[in-house]
């Protein structure tokens, strides 16, 4: 018997972006589009550029309809030239614009790596010229998109210094954070997890000045026994694991970093003070991944509160594999999370 699989394996396709439900619920995809739209309306210095974002509306349809509303001067379809897309964002920001550059997949940010890590990240420190640039793109796996359409590039660009790296997990956070990123005077990288785009839906604020601050984490579920510190799509796996653990009388707290660099140490350490046990869960690789930084911060700064070793749960540093059996084994699963939390709570 064949199982139904999702159309458009990488999570995209020609389907329209869709609309809010009548009671005001919006997907992550819609919420991001609303945030972009509102900021384009609010500030005429904001413009967007990227591959296939205009006529086609973007590979994932985030920018569907933007060209009609804002015109080809503010919604620019570009050649496939990522270094130049970043360079164009830098140069126009130096001249007073607030560009938003879309990467069709976050994987292709590495095609612009030098302009991002050398130029974008280092202009302000060396010259004092602010670069209000947003680089955005779909990241992450869980959609059978394999090695070149599933990357979590946040560690590379966090290491660059000088770029704020934002990885929201919920529609409201995504909307509030994309708006904050556009209004921020520093370079921001906004990573949209493609698994979340059309799967997670919630009530999303409609006030035009609804913002979520950058570098602010949020406790998404309160608990007493173990803190699961995570971000992106793994937040949803952590919440599912916490539900399962509750049935076994293990109370897990889920902390969503929302911004991975610079991250909100205070909220993370506050949670550890309460639970005394930390599972650091990330979809970025284990070695030199975001989890490594969070875990070492906890070990350094909350040692006296810990009752157990800080544990990391992350994929190994290998390319994201395609076959469903391989990708599922590669990614931290709900069962993996439950298992690690149980071990921690036994300390």
């Amino acid at each position, binding site marked *: 018997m064949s199982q139904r699989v999702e159309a458009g394996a990488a999570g995209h396709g020609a389907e329209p972006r869709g609309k809010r439900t009548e009671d005001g619920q919006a997907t992550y995809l819609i919420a991001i589009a609303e945030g972009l739209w509102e900021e384009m309306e609010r500030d005429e210095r904001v*413009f967007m550029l990227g591959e296939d974002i205009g006529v086609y509306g973007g590979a994932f349809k985030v920018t569907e309809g933007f060209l009609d509303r804002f015109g080809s001067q503010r919604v620019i379809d570009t050649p496939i030239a990522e270094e130049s897309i970043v360079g164009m964002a830098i*140069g126009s920001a*130096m001249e007073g614009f607030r560009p938003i550059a879309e990467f069709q997949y976050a994987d292709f940010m590495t095609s612009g790596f030098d302009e991002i890590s050398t130029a974008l990240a280092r202009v302000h*420190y*060396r010259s004092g010229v602010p670069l209000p640039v947003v680089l955005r793109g779909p990241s992450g796996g869980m959609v059978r998109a394999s090695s070149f359409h599933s990357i979590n590039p946040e560690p590379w660009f966090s290491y660059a210094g*000088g770029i704020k790296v934002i990885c929201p997990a919920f529609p409201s956070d995504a909307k509030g954070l994309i708006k904050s990123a556009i209004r921020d005077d520093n370079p921001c990288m906004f990573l949209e997890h493609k698994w979340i785009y059309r799967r997670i839906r919630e009530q999303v604020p409609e006030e035009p000045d609804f913002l979520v601050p950058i570098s602010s984490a949020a406790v998404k579920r309160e608990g007493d026994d173990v803190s699961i510190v995570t971000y992106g799509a793994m937040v949803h796996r952590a919440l599912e694991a916490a539900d399962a653990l509750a049935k076994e009388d293990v109370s897990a707290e889920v902390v969503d970093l929302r911004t991975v660099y610079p991250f909100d140490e205070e909220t993370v350490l506050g949670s550890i003070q309460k639970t005394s046990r930390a599972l650091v869960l990330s979809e970025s690789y284990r070695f030199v991944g975001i989890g490594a930084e969070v875990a070492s911060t906890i070990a350094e700064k909350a040692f006296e509160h810990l009752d157990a070793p800080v544990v990391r749960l992350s994929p190994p540093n290998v390319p994201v594999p395609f076959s469903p059996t391989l990708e599922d084994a590669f990614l931290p699963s709900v069962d993996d999370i439950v298992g690690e939390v149980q071990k921690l709570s036994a300390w």
Partner: protein
Amino acid sequence: MATTRTREPAEGTSRARFPDDELKRILYLLKLCRYFDERIEALYRQGRLPGAIYSGRGQEGTHVGVVLPLRPDDSLFPTHRDLSAQITKGLDLKRVMAQFWGRIDGYTRGRDGNSHIGDWSGNRTWTVMSHLPIAYPVALGAAQAYRMRGDDKVAMAICGDGATSNGRWHEALNWSAIAKLPVVWVVNNNRYAYSTPNELEFPVPTIAERAAAYAMPGVRVDGSDVLEVEAAAREAVERARSGGGPSLIESVSLRWRGHAGHDPAKYVPKELLDDHMGQKDPVKNFEQRLLGEGVVDEDEVKEIQGRIEREFEEGYEYALASPFPEPADHAKGLWVEDGYWTSEPGRNGPTEYS
């Protein structure tokens, strides 16, 4: 329609092109850039200058010539070898020297050194980065901004022959031509990418002819003749300013010194170097020309030279009197909101440090 050609030297005297005062200013700039380059190298070899140096000697005709047609509000995106172009655009020699000595009054407040310099808020020059041609795509963005705002400003980017082998060079030319952006692409072809000669850098006879592939005009000009370079640049700048789109200028010279101060450049054939230093010296040739045409006399040349030497000494004294940055500030200025760049920096660092 795109054209690629080698610019033929114009007929007539210098006076047919510029009034005497401007010709004297050009001579001053050429001689200043030469003197600065020589003195900085001497101080480097004496162990009195920290960091590295990237000599632009022999290429002053290119550097001064391309910048002359730019307005103060046009932007310039040069490389570490183009300090002379930055000086022509208006950098203050005192602050340049404070930068070379890592002092707080340098344009980067000691966050970078030598010709990794720029003054965006003042002279509209990019703070140079090493990964060439990293600023070519950035110039594209400045030009796009002028287009969006309806300004008649022009962006000019300079790189060397070496950087034309990099993908970004082609990306930037391609996109600028698609969008007809107001930008001038300059290649300072000094014949060597570090030790690699032109023959191993590109398979076509000239860089200028590559413009045809991007449907833009390309011109090859003799970099030893500052007025010829100026004329080619003026044509390209005016074309960009009037909506005619981008152009490519290849200005040919020779790098007289090594890639950086440590490099003796023994890979450059002696005859080639002798020929350029003897026949194609952009500074000496222009001086001889103005003397021959009676624009200046020997006394005026001496006066110009004296002024340059005084200015250098003043700059040197200024640099050494400027404090080093305060060590505790080393992590400041990363984010806009920490306020480092919008406030006066601390001046309590030492003036002696090694």
